[in-house]
């Protein structure tokens, strides 16, 4: 094994340019695929966070007396799936709106009366965070006579999910294309190396070298190239991520943009995939161009 390894390292040195091209190609493929993975992982986390924090706002009809509020709250709380109900008076809501629209306060100043309705903010239990369950609860709340309207932001979340799924599909397709491209490049590199060393391989066979002895270093060589390509790809992504995320964190403090790098399990998996790319490229090349 040590002999194979030394010969593989020597081959990489002897064919420096070809090896560099292979490593860079694998690194670029890994970089692009990992960048997609990073985006999807974070987007998925954000969406899960949004889904978990989904709330229903139930707006009361104007003119409902304050003494009816406890009764309405009780009726909402009795609905299965509701965890917590908070009353938000129209005054409180108006105050919050003013705080949020500090720069446009002149618009609100000109209003003669508070246009906002009294409302209940409803949180659901964990098992009711699914879209269809939220819709069911919202319909039941809406059917209460004192309720004028309910809002739970389902439509935009659904639209976002659809777009996200489309992106995910494009990501898979691109991942597949880059995987094939990397395999093809590795196979081609090994093929060129075999071609330049065909006389040497012939001599090795004549002096009694087994196929394992001839092929072993090629496999090790391509696995080394795959590993290096994978590590470089992940390293470049990590550096880029650090640069971008530090800028984003300075600009935004929202929880929504609390982006994270890929987990160690995930990037170890990517490096393993990269090693597999090297191995597969070599396997194809040897099968086609190194017939015993």
């Amino acid at each position, binding site marked *: 094994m*040590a*002999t194979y390894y030394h010969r593989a390292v020597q081959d990489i040195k*002897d064919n420096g340019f070809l090896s560099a091209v292979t490593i860079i190609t694998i690194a670029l493929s890994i970089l692009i695929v990992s960048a997609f993975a990073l985006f999807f992982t974070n987007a998925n986390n954000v969406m899960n966070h949004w889904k978990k924090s989904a709330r229903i706002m139930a707006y009361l009809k104007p003119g409902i007396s304050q003494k009816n509020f406890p009764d309405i709250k009780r009726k909402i709380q009795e609905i299965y799936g509701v965890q917590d109900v908070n009353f938000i008076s129209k005054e409180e809501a108006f105050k919050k709106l003013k705080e949020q629209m500090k720069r446009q306060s002149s618009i609100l100043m000109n209003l003669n009366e508070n246009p906002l309705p009294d409302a209940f903010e409803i949180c659901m239990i964990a098992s009711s965070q699914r879209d269809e369950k939220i819709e069911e609860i919202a319909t039941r709340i809406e059917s209460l006579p004192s309720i004028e309207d309910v809002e739970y932001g389902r439509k935009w979340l659904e639209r976002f999910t659809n777009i996200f799924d489309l992106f995910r599909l494009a990501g898979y397709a691109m991942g597949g294309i880059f995987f094939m491209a990397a395999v093809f490049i590795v196979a081609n590199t090994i093929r060129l190396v075999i071609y330049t060393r065909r*006389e*040497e391989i012939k*001599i*090795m*066979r*004549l*002096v*009694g*070298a*087994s*196929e394992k*002895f001839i092929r072993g270093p090629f496999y090790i060589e391509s696995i080394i190239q795959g590993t290096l390509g994978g590590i470089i790809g992940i390293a470049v992504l990590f550096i880029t991520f650090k640069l971008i995320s530090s800028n984003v964190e300075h600009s935004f403090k929202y929880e929504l943009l609390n982006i994270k790098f890929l987990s160690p399990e995930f990037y170890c998996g990517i490096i393993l995939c990269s090693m597999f790319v090297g191995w597969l490229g070599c396997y194809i090349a040897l099968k086609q161009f190194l017939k*015993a």
Partner: protein
Amino acid sequence: MIDGKDKSSIIQMFHVHKYYGSKKALVDISLNVSKNDFLFISGPSGAGKSTLLRLLYLGEPVSEGQVLVDGMNLSRISRKKIPFLRRKFGIIFQDYKLISTKTVFDNVALVLEASGKKRKFIEKKVRSVLRTVGIERRINALPPSLSGGEQQRVAVARAVVGVPRIILADEPTGSLDSDSADIILNLLKGFHTHGGTVIVATHDKELIRKAGGRILYLKQGRLLGPAPI
């Protein structure tokens, strides 16, 4: 009878034919080589000497007939066994067949690496063999920088380093001056003295005269018996 049980024989050929298309390279060759034989296969250029040697290490297959090498029937040998067959031979090629990008050491060490020997053993053994053939000082040189005689000595070193059972030498002195040819001949004789079997294909009558082994004469692909020296 082909049973490979003749203990004194190391190579047996039975009615071997070799064709290249319609051209007959070897015709009905039957041959017995005993252990520790020193055999010359002589004949003019194109007589089929090199072809005959190639059939022995499965450089190419026979068209008809059977070949037995050290008990292995070459017609029935599996692909995986071919390296084991070739390790029984130390082959000295007419054109040396040294790897031009590898040093003298690496070229000779290749045989031992291929048979899975340990690095330390390889280091020691290769140096010792290179010393024997008188080329140790060029251990780190690349073959293209060596003279013909030096390259041939490296080829001999590579042939003997794995302690094979048989040495096949194809025109081993073909392009060498008489001093270099004598060195090569002495190396082959040394191998023979230590119990090895040597088969030399050559048309060099001087070499045959000096060596004094068994001689077979090949003409137009047919074995004609002892050579007219």
